[in-house]
């Protein structure tokens, strides 16, 4: 279980991006973080993975305070993070990245299985360099497959996994998330604006203007919205200035 308490993060300029964010992400459940663009979702993911350090508050993994740990220590202790914007490498290919994530050599069958989970055909991609020649959707799916290859993870954060992904691959992705969830032993946190991902969630947190503006079970949050006669497609919560949307 991942537990975030009173997290505050400001830029060097003093601009506050996250303000007293608290969130519990229980094992075996899928928690979706949604909310308007610029609300602070990716910033939260970066704080969880250790890419940024908070000025205040704490992050605990299975009861242990990991707030002071660096990126590598967090990754080694079981935190995985699929970036919103995949990183490109001149020279590392798909196999390299998957094997680095898995910490061992993988055979063709294993690579095929991993790529299949994100709807990619292994034969075409196994030796592809993960550089700027990949399309946005391809790079995104490889990024997700890399995180799936990291089998020691206790917490996985996916940052907008749906972005740029076609309908067919998206179905495989939903299956992959459901499978991760049914394994039961890790916390899943998916940042998403996608209805189908919201539909398979257990909990939903809405982050807007740097704060958790809503948190509850899927029924509570989605039901509440229906009552407000707002379609799910319409952004949930508030924009950066804290004004309600719509």
């Amino acid at each position, binding site marked *: 279980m991942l537990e975030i308490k009173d997290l505050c993060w400001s830029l060097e300029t003093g601009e506050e991006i996250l303000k007293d964010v608290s969130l519990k992400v229980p094992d075996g459940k899928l928690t979706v973080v949604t909310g308007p663009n610029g609300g602070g979702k990716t910033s939260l993911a970066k704080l969880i*993975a250790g890419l940024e350090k908070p000025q205040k508050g704490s992050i605990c993994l299975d009861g242990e305070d990991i707030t002071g740990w660096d*990126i590598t220590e967090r*990754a080694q202790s079981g935190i995985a993070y699929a970036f919103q914007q995949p990183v490109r490498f*001149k*020279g590392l290919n798909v196999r390299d990245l998957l094997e*680095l*994530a898995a910490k061992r050599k993988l055979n063709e069958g294993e690579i095929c299985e991993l790529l299949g989970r994100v709807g990619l055909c292994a034969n075409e991609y196994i030796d592809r360099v993960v550089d700027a020649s990949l399309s946005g959707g391809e790079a995104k799916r490889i990024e997700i497959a*890399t995180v799936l290859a990291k089998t020691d993870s206790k917490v996985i954060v996916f940052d907008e996994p749906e972005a740029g992904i076609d309908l067919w691959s998206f179905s495989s992705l939903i299956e992959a998330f459901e499978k991760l969830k049914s394994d039961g032993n890790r916390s899943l946190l998916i940042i998403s604006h996608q209805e189908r991902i919201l539909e398979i969630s257990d909990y939903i947190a809405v982050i807007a203007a740097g704060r958790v503006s809503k948190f509850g079970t899927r029924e509570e949050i989605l039901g509440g919205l229906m009552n407000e006669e707002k379609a799910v497609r319409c952004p949930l919560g508030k924009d950066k200035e804290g004004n309600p949307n719509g």
Partner: protein
Amino acid sequence: MDKTTEELLGIVSDWSGKFNGAYNIRSNGQCAGRQSSENILIENKEGAPGLVIKIKPGTKGETVYIPACVTKGGIDDLVYNDFYVGEGADVIIVAGCGVHTDDGHDVRHNGIHRFILDKGSKVLYKEKHIGTGAGGGAKRIDPVTEIIQGEDSYLEMDTIQIGGVDRTFRKTSGTLGKGAKLVIKERILTDKEQRAETDFAVELNGEGSAADIVSRSVARGNSYQEYHSKISGNAKCKGHSECDAILADNGKVNAAPELFAGDLDAELIHEAAIGKIAGEQIIKLRTLGLTEEEAEKKIIDGFLRG
């Protein structure tokens, strides 16, 4: 052959106790083994140290190996090797050079290779360089490559300096006829006080000729690298050169690309990028559990391999 030569041969060529097909092994300035094949004839060059290698027209699928090693300090080995590739041939040429010194004396190999490609021939030329051995002696490799390409011929030069070479001056020139294509992939790693200088000059003289030069280098320690390239487009042609360098520690790189367009239909492009490893690449690998040092190593190894 001494043990060091055997080890170096294993690193710079596909040597595993023997070669299949045509080969010539040069060790400390002497011939340590030679074999011609039915289609590839290897002979001594007249009037100068080195070889003349004649590849018969139409030869397909054969590989010729001509590695050279210098394993004793105090040797300055100069060799001229000329390759005549017959019309329509399609072959692989594996050169490769290892220099070793541990007796405090300098060691140098200076290989001057000329390639004359007849119409429609195709060559993959692989060259790997390494320096080994302790002691204060400088390890130097100074290759000169001259390429003359006839109509519709194709040459790909894959050249890599994997490490341990204190000084290198690499000079490569090409003259391309109608429809000829030249692809060069160069990789250079320097460390400590090493220096590497590379110089390309390509003349695109024939209509429809094309050259693609990609040089990737990593300069770490206190090392210094210089890159010069000049592509001259003298006809309707395409030329592309790219110099991509990663700096680490106190490494320094000077890249000076040059393009000359002497024809209205010459299309020439140069790209150069020098900088340290992108921070986000290290961060991504760290999120997979690698330490910063491990991440850097993976990124550099991949960059130089790719």
